[in-house]
């Protein structure tokens, strides 16, 4: 019983981190349909920026977080105008190649300035203090991540499904020429969506850094993890990604509690089973 409860609590806590680090990819890859392998790159840049701010300049965590997210957005805007805008039109394979190229450059830049070692983000000590839930001890920062995750998923759902912007975005992605001829300013819609994706990547990267520490090769090291969440969640579905992240978190945690010896094999077999049964994502019935 306590094990089951632990699995659920730890699983949700872990799943929420998975959600936070991959939600930016759900926006760029799921909604905008760019095979954006550079997603982790934006998380890396956000994390590296937060590292420098908290470590070298002693800026407190919260302002550092906000400044870093803003900094990534500021970088993403010209990048979109100059580079990504052309990438949208590429075939999927070309997108793979282009975004790999971008991520290489991002990694090399961080490597050049900060080296290839871990880039810790200093947090107030209280954040990593254990909180006793009665049946279980949970670090405070996980509770913060859970709350942040809930806020992000709600806001994003409303934005995409309930606003005109959401409709414009999905229309532009489906058929840019037609959307434009209906008067939708597709370049601006793309720019906004892309910046949102980059901001979320940075936000998630920084919040998730307690578990997936930032270092120059972060984008490549965890690429599979980001992709899994989006794949299991289903392209373009925010709620899907959320459910997927939580399920994967619980699944992986269950594997570690119950079958630690074959945890990895169990995890990937389970993913295989899910994708075989639901090739379009957890929430979408296969047609």
């Amino acid at each position, binding site marked *: 019983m306590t094990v089951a409860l632990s699995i659920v609590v730890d699983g949700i806590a872990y799943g929420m981190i998975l959600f936070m680090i991959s939600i930016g990819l759900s926006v760029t890859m799921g909604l905008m349909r760019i095979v954006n392998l550079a997603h982790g790159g934006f998380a890396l840049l956000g994390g590296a920026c937060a590292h420098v701010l908290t470590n070298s300049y002693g800026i407190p965590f919260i302002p550092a977080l906000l400044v870093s997210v803003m900094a990534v957005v500021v970088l993403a805007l010209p990048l979109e105008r100059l*580079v990504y805008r*052309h*990438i949208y039109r*590429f075939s*999927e*394979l*070309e997108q*793979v*190649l*282009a975004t*790999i*190229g*971008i*991520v*290489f*450059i991002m*990694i*090399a*830049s961080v*490597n*050049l300035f900060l080296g290839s070692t871990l880039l810790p983000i200093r947090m107030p000590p209280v954040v990593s203090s254990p909180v006793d839930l009665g049946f279980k001890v949970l670090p405070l920062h996980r509770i913060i991540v859970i709350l942040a995750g809930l806020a992000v998923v709600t806001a994003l759902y409303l934005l995409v499904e309930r606003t005109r912007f959401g409709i414009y975005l999905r229309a532009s992605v489906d058929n840019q020429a037609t959307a434009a001829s209906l008067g939708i300013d597709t370049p601006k819609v793309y720019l906004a969506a892309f910046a949102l994706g980059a901001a979320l990547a940075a936000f998630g990267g920084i919040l998730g850094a307690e578990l997936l520490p930032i270092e120059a090769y972060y984008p*490549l090291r965890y*690429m*599979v993890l980001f*992709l*899994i969440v*989006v*794949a*299991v969640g289903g*392209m373009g579905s925010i709620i899907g990604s959320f459910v997927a992240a939580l399920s994967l978190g619980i699944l992986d945690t269950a594997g570690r509690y119950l079958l630690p010896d*074959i945890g*990895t*094999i169990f995890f*990937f*077999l389970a*993913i*295989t089973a899910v*994708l*075989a049964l639901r*090739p*379009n*994502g957890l929430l979408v019935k296969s047609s």
Partner: protein
Amino acid sequence: MSANSTIAAARPQIRGAATFLPPIILLAGAFVAFWLFPYDLGFMTRILIMMVFVLSFDLILGYAGIATLGHAAMYGCGAYAAGLFAIHVSADPLLGLAIGAAAGALIALVSGLLLMRAHGLSLLMLSIAVTMVLQETASKARGITGGADGLTGISMGPVLGIFEFDFIGKTAFWYAFCVLFVILLVLRVVVASPFGLALRGIKDSPSRMRAIGTPLYRRKVAAYVLGGAIAGIAGALTAQITSLVSIEAFNFALSAEVMVMLVLGGAGRLYGALIGTLVFMTVHHIAAGIDPFNWLFVIGFMVLAVVFFLPEGLISLPKRLMRLD
């Protein structure tokens, strides 16, 4: 109609001089490379093996349009199978290649039965999952595979009973080259066959392919198995030439790199696969040699430049240049 003449299908029939020229260039290239860079045989052999591997992926991705990120599964199985075969059964290299091919084909068949029903992102993830499971299994089966330390104790007999593997790597170079050459000729036949045309049809419009009565799934599995067999051969070559197999053979990075090399060179073109591999590995080698800490910049910018200026891959460079004037 004359307005359209420039956009006419640029697929000349491979006939006459065009049939023989590329293999001759390849052969000549090998001799020149062998003669010019006698000290880099080890590195050049790695390029040749990688070419075999990328070619096998070209059949699957470039021709049939099946995008996976787990091609290392077949490579790794081929490598382990050939390595174990050499240790426990026979040191004959060619037999080992056959075993590698069989292992690659077998894993492609078993996983392909599942994978070929999927597409898009889920196919990518499934293929990654298969590779991860294999890697983890190899890592855990320490008694058989040596785990993370690698499978050691491989020592190969002479090729065809005549050519001993030498210290400098001459035999290895020509051995790998001959394998590449044969594979290339085989693939040329395959892609120009009705089966090859059907693969291109599948890539283009699966639903239409079904509507003309093609058993899509079977064709895709067949292509995957064929590609898997060739990838297995590439793995077997590595095992034989390095005399060691490590679990890195199943690395995700390897699968991703293969895709990058292929797209860089030009997917759906056999020579594109060769050029992509050659350029990627050479640039990597030279750049990493000059500045190991920052070579990633060079690769990053090269890759970006190619997608932006040569969207059909490096192989389209000559065509581009000719069109300029």
